[in-house]
């Protein structure tokens, strides 16, 4: 079944058309990577899926129009990991993961044992069990990102939206976080839609890529089909080498030429 279906979706923000007639589909259980240069509209597309921005056209979640779903119903199906999550320094990791239970609790309901279990379980799956009582302000970048993912897992949604999940991390933490996402997906059949700048990581982890530029869907397919030297040059204005490995595609930026007048 199709998890997310965009049909001629356009978004206008403050008189600027940031998304223009985009069609795309994310299949159930798939990891689809959105790539594109800065300002291409990747984040806006994610926000449209989450019902957080008004759009023209149609965005359907497992057949239901996002704009017609109540906020809490959307939150039970979609967990959004924002690019820069607001993480209160003094909050403990367990309290933070517990916030993921919000869509499952009615307005004035208390947190119950089942919610605590779900939050602890989420911490366990992200290898954060020992961090339950640590304050968010004391975590490293990779630990923080795992805490955000734990909140998303506690939310028990079927679709995970990742907006630049690794842009603030070092290369080791980047791999650790994406491997965890990958294993969570394998364990529970999560569907993942991610927006990523790092083309190599996108090419290694996503099943399929959609390239957007200036609000338009310009290419899609397997990483090898989308990440070509020619497409990257055209849409990013970048000079790159594309390497095909066993686990996917790697994109290596290379300087066009060395200036002649620089001495070594």
């Amino acid at each position: 079944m199709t998890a997310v279906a965009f049909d001629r979706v356009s978004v206008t923000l403050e008189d600027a058309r940031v998304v223009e007639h985009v069609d795309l589909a994310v299949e159930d259980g798939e990891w689809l990577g959105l790539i594109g240069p800065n300002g291409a509209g990747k984040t806006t597309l994610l926000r449209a899926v989450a019902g957080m921005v008004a759009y023209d056209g149609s965005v359907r979640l497992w057949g239901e129009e996002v704009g017609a779903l109540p906020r809490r119903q959307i939150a039970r199906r979609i967990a959004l990991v924002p690019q820069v999550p607001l993480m209160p320094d003094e909050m403990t990791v367990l309290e933070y993961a517990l916030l993921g239970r919000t869509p499952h609790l009615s307005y004035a309901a208390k947190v119950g044992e089942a919610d605590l279990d779900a939050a602890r379980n989420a911490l366990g799956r992200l290898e954060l069990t020992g961090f339950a009582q640590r304050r968010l302000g004391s975590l490293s970048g990779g630990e923080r990102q795992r805490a955000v993912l734990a909140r998303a897992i506690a939310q028990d949604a079927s679709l995970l939206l990742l907006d630049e999940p690794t842009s603030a991390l070092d290369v080791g933490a980047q791999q650790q976080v994406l491997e965890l996402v990958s294993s969570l997906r394998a364990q529970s059949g999560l569907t993942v839609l991610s927006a990523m700048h790092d083309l190599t990581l996108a090419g290694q982890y996503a099943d399929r890529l959609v390239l957007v530029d200036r609000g338009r869907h310009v290419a899609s397919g397997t990483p090898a089909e989308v990440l070509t030297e020619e497409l990257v040059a055209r849409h990013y204005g970048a000079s790159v080498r594309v390497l095909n490995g066993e686990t996917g595609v790697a994109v290596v930026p290379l300087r066009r030429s060395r200036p002649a007048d620089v001495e070594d």
Partner: protein
Amino acid sequence: MPVRWAAAALAFLLLATLLGLGLGPVGLGAGRVARDVLSHVPFLHISSPLNGTEDAILWQLRAPRVVLGLLVGAMLASAGAAYQGVFRNPLADPYLLGAAAGAGLGATLVIAYGAADDLRPVAAFAGATVGVGAAYALGRSVGGRSTAALVLAGVTVASFLTAIQTFVQQRHADSVQEVYAWILGQLDTSGWTEVLIAVPYVAFSAGVLLLHRRLLDVLAVGDEEASSLGVPVARVRFLVVAAATLGTAAAVALSGLIGFVGIIVPHAVRLLVGTSYRVVLPLSLVFGAGFLVLADLIARTVISPAELPIGVVTAFFGAPFFAVVLRTTRTVGP
């Protein structure tokens, strides 16, 4: 909530209440007061150790005052905690946000123009709403979400409303005394009337705030993310601000301007139990109630037989405490 903290809060409340009832110009003794209270419980068959005059002092003078202190303290402390949560600002407080100054203006207008006393809470609420609304709008327009901008806007609005309030007060010389005594903050009651007026406002406001304590934790991650977690952010913010403002207004209408309770109590509670509003809000309510009764005890005994305004006592302890909070607040600044 950790059971031991709930027990500690209730023990503190009980102790403060017994001290408040027992101490004063006529010492009744906390132990004798406790026995007297138990003597009113049916089927216990405990005889009261108090004579007729002492009994009248206890039930007609002290008890209403202590109960009003409990109500006002509970309200100011829980409203402070709620404002801090909803504005994501550790420095928010009914006084710094202009709520109290607005309520003061509303109540002064009622006193000065000789309207019915029943109107005082309503006028105070209208004034408080104007105060908070103006402070929030001004803060947003100059500093976005910066904590300092909201507080500075609150101080600005409060100064302006206080200026109008002083103007009205001076124009009506006949009621200056009454307004002035009231402004400085006092829990001076004449029997149970004020207490009975306060109960419905405080019960309603505190009830609404307690109902939202879990959602206040969700608001801590920002409007956008709270919304992505399914929370109707605008509705929650509106209800919490309205309830906190209504409660503050009722407290101000009855007891005048008693500052810093909404800062001291929630911050002290956070130091003990962490930051989750699921725990901070109910504990602030209970500790706030006991705290204000103790502050009132100091106010009426330290220069006995004269009384200090209770607002002077809370400011004396609260201002240095606020300075400490200000120094340790990491999120200040644009």
